[in-house]
């Protein structure tokens, strides 16, 4: 239901952990939004100046126009479906649930309430380096994308082995569904969908029931290949996405995350230079762009506000994007049943302090 | 690492005042000073640069070493180091409060680096020339429990502190050390060469004390380093009568080679140059080229960090390190 343009959007946040707080802070900086309440079972909301609900149904009954659902993965679908069925617009954190079935159920709810906007938090598409890269690829000046290659990894983190993100029933998987999913989403941004999926999943170090490393190969009907390494044993935090085209390449390294541990966000672009016979020469001249600020959170929320206020379809992070990327995740998990922890991992794991 | 962590600014300023008083007492008459050739290359030609606290600094025309000339003779210098109030304050008022910070920030990493770089020397006799409190040998002993650690330290007070830590001590200057030829696998001399009347004497003596294949590892000030060059006579490192010699990577390598060493590494791993210059601009209103004031005011932390790394990488930090092998 479209809102009148002069009214602010009343928003609630379900799940006030790390992501909930990021979203809340961002709402506070935007004029279009008014936070009317939060829901958190662990009282993270203590000290907030808005009502704090223990049950999400309480928050949904308090009359929000939209909710941001920032709970652990397993809870996401039921909250989303409840909100959608009440005609409330929903912004749902990634991943969209634990399984592809979760996405299908959410999409059914969405289909039954056509006026409701449902958007998922694939935030990386809003990073300036990614947007610049997309504009360059779309211009066609460098030709067709041949292949893309991504590395996304972190060192796990404090108490990583005890984190709910590594309990399959709560999260649906390991580092791939938690972090690697962003890279899969970017692969789709540059190559659309993939039909063939190969993967190796390992538990190389952490004593967890899910993968701590995923090595993935994807191919689509146009012959474009994508290669992903998603890792929770990348001791030096790393984000790198390379896009190679017929007449040049792009490489995004570092990403301005909230922790700033992935390095300065940088886009390198080069156009092939050719020798006298027309063969490409190695190491062409590069243009390197450094980004100073991360406005991805604001842009993402602004986009969501525009969809609501102008009754426009969700174009980035809509439920079909969610469906496609979760379908990839599911295929990757199916392609390589996770084996036992590797012997080396057993040793280093035991040595962990 | 930040300058303030290893050098309390107030204590340092107080110390500098004591030094000025001691200069009047210990070196009252510059007529007694002796004219010396370049302490690095022995050349006689030099250019006057500036005077500070009554000491004239000149630059060697052959190797660019900056040095005090004429300079106090070796004997009064030794007297000054062993007995002056400023030397006492250096120990009690200045060094002791930051000793643990220095252990952590300087000596431990230094010991780790050496242990990692020269593992073959782990069971040899190691001598630290001018061992002071013995912090370095203590840290190295943890990593090399089978090495024999010897402090070479002329100050009775410091020697006692080293002994209290169960470190063997030769209570003398290395120049006066007799009868230990070809005994050592590794000799270290941290921040020492800049103080000496004759750095060459130390390097030549070290050569004799080392066994063939043994290593000399020394750190000293690089007169071509960033903060010294930018601040020049305003630099607190240019500090008579303590800092008499400012060699540079080429001059230091030349000195060691002429004593018979094969130089394996000369580097400038310093981390503090930028911090020192920025501090001098902010606290002492030092005059510098415009660009450094711009960087101090507008540069991001990352920018300053990268600049420091660039200085170190290209031999432009004022903290210099040499590793040389006796063939």
């Amino acid at each position, binding site marked *: 239901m479209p809102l009148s343009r002069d009214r602010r959007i009343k928003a609630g946040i379900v799940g006030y952990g790390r992501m909930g707080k990021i979203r809340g802070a961002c709402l506070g900086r935007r004029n279009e939004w008014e936070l009317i309440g939060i829901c958190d079972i662990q009282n993270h909301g203590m000290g907030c100046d808005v009502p704090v609900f223990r049950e999400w149904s309480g928050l949904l009954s308090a009359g929000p126009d939209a909710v941001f659902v920032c709970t652990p993965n397993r809870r996401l679908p039921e909250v989303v479906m409840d909100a959608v069925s009440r005609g409330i617009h929903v912004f749902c954190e990634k991943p969209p649930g634990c399984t592809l079935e979760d996405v299908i159920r959410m999409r059914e709810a969405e289909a039954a309430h056509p006026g409701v906007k449902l958007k998922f938090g694939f935030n990386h598409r809003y990073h300036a380096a990614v947007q610049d890269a997309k504009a360059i690829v779309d*211009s066609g000046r460098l030709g067709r994308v041949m292949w893309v290659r991504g590395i996304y990894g972190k060192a796990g983190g404090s108490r990583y082995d005890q984190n709910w993100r590594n309990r399959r029933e709560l999260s649906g998987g390991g580092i791939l569904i938690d972090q690697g999913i962003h890279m899969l989403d970017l692969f789709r941004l540059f190559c659309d969908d993939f039909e063939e999926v190969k993967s190796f999943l390992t538990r190389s170090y952490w004593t967890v029931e899910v993968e701590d490393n995923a090595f993935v190969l994807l191919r689509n009907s146009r012959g474009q290949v994508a290669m992903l390494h998603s890792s929770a044993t990348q001791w030096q935090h790393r984000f790198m996405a390379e896009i190679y085209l017929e007449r040049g390449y792009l490489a995004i390294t570092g990403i301005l995350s909230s922790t700033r541990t992935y390095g300065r966000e940088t886009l390198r672009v080069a*156009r092939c230079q050719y020798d006298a016979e027309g063969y490409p020469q190695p190491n062409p001249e*590069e*243009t390197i762009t450094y980004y100073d600020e991360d406005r991805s959170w604001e842009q993402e929320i602004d986009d969501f506000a525009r969809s609501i206020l102008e009754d426009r379809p969700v174009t980035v992070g809509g439920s079909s994007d969610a469906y496609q990327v979760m379908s990839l995740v599911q295929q990757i998990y199916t392609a390589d049943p996770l084996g036992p922890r590797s012997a080396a991992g057993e040793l280093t794991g035991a040595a962990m302090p | 690492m930040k300058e303030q962590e290893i050098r309390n600014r107030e204590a340092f300023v107080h110390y500098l005042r004591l030094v000025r008083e001691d200069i009047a007492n210990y070196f009252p008459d510059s007529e007694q000073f002796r004219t010396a050739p370049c302490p690095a290359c022995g050349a006689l030609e030099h250019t006057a640069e500036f005077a500070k606290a009554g000491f004239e600094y000149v630059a060697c025309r052959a190797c660019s070493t900056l040095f005090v000339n004429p300079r106090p003779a070796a004997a009064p210098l030794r007297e000054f180091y062993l007995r002056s109030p400023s030397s006492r304050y250096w120990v009690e008022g200045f060094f002791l409060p930051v000793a643990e910070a220095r252990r952590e920030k300087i000596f431990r990493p230094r010991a780790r680096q050496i242990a990692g770089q020269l593992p073959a020397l782990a069971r040899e006799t190691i001598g630290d020339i001018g061992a002071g409190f013995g912090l370095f040998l203590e840290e190295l002993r943890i990593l090399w429990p089978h090495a024999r650690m010897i402090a070479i330290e002329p100050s009775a007070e410091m020697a006692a502190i080293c002994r209290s830590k169960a470190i063997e001590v030769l209570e003398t200057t290395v120049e006066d050390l007799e009868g230990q030829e070809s005994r050592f696998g590794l000799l270290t001399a941290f921040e020492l060469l800049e103080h000496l009347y004759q750095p060459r004497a130390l390097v030549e003596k070290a050569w004799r004390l080392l066994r063939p294949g043994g290593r000399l590892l020394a750190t000293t000030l690089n007169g071509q380093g960033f903060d010294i060059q*930018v601040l020049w006579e305003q630099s607190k490192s240019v500090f008579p009568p303590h800092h008499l010699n400012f060699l540079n990577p080429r001059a230091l390598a030349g000195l060691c080679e002429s004593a018979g060493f094969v130089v394996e590494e000369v580097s400038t791993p310093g981390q503090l140059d930028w911090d020192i210059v920025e501090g001098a601009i902010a606290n002492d209103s030092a005059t510098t*080229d415009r660009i450094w004031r711009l960087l101090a005011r507008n540069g991001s932390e990352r920018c300053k960090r990268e600049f420091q790394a*660039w200085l170190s990488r*290209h031999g432009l930090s004022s903290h210099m390190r040499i590793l040389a092998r006796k063939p």
Partner: protein
Amino acid sequence: MKAVVLRDDLREADIRPEPLYAEYKAILENESRRIFDGSIRIENRELLPFDCPNCGKAPVAEFERWGAQYCRCATCASLLVSPRPGQEALDAFRRESRAGRFWEQTFAAATGAAREHGIFRPRLQWLLSIKDRYGPRASVVADYRSKYPTFLEALCDSGEFPQVVSLQPEAPWEKLPLAVRPERRAGPEALLHRTDILTLFEVIERVSNPGEVLHLARELCAPGGVLVLTTTSSSGFEYQLLGGSAPNLNPLDRMNLFSIDALTRLIGKAGFEILELSTPGRLDVATVRKTLESDPDLPGLSFWRYFFRHCGEDAEHTLQEFLQQYRLSSHVRVVARRQ
């Protein structure tokens, strides 16, 4: 905001070859001295004191160069010639200028290929990428006070922009030493609020009133239109180190050297949102090296003398890239959107 670094092989000797460049500079110096000491007769050649357009204050005298007094704004550190001739006098002078003719007829011809390769080609690529990113439907590109007609032709030949015009406020065209084809000529009034991409290549440093030009830029841009600007900055390495000894400091072409701070605020005040502010210059380190080598008596800078004598090409190269990365090169480029 973002900052761009360029890695390529631009060499100063290619675009400013000696002895031709020295000859050009000698003519320039002579003309500059005569305009500032009043011995060139043009109408309205009166020199007027000039306040910092960013801060509104009178700048403080710092050094003299070729007869012109360079002053520094105590607040924003911009370098400004004051007193200075008005725009009319400058335009009148340029039409007569012997240096201008030498540039057109001799110098530009001799360096054409190098400039094509080292400057115009990257500039064209840059404009195309701006179009891709910020104005995919851009149709009107206007180049204000064009200096290089060949670049305009290249822009047209790209086939990417339906309308490419040169905007010249100082008509009549016939009097200009500028070979712009008639169909590309326009006056500012024709394009008010119509320009999708407005380019000011090396303009704001050489106009008498840069604040006015930025104001006009806003009037020319269509809503959401993009301003593209290059200039020379006093915050850059070359000018920070060399000041009045900077070899390319020609008072008539570089009357305003804004600091990065000042430039950011001026463009903001004119009603633009800055999308990119970079200093992708590639020549600062080489220029300083050359200057120090040719002038051993230049005071200070002993750190840099040692650096150039001993540190080698890799260190110089990484320094230039560091300068680019942290907006410390003297050559500035800006992309901004009209708000």
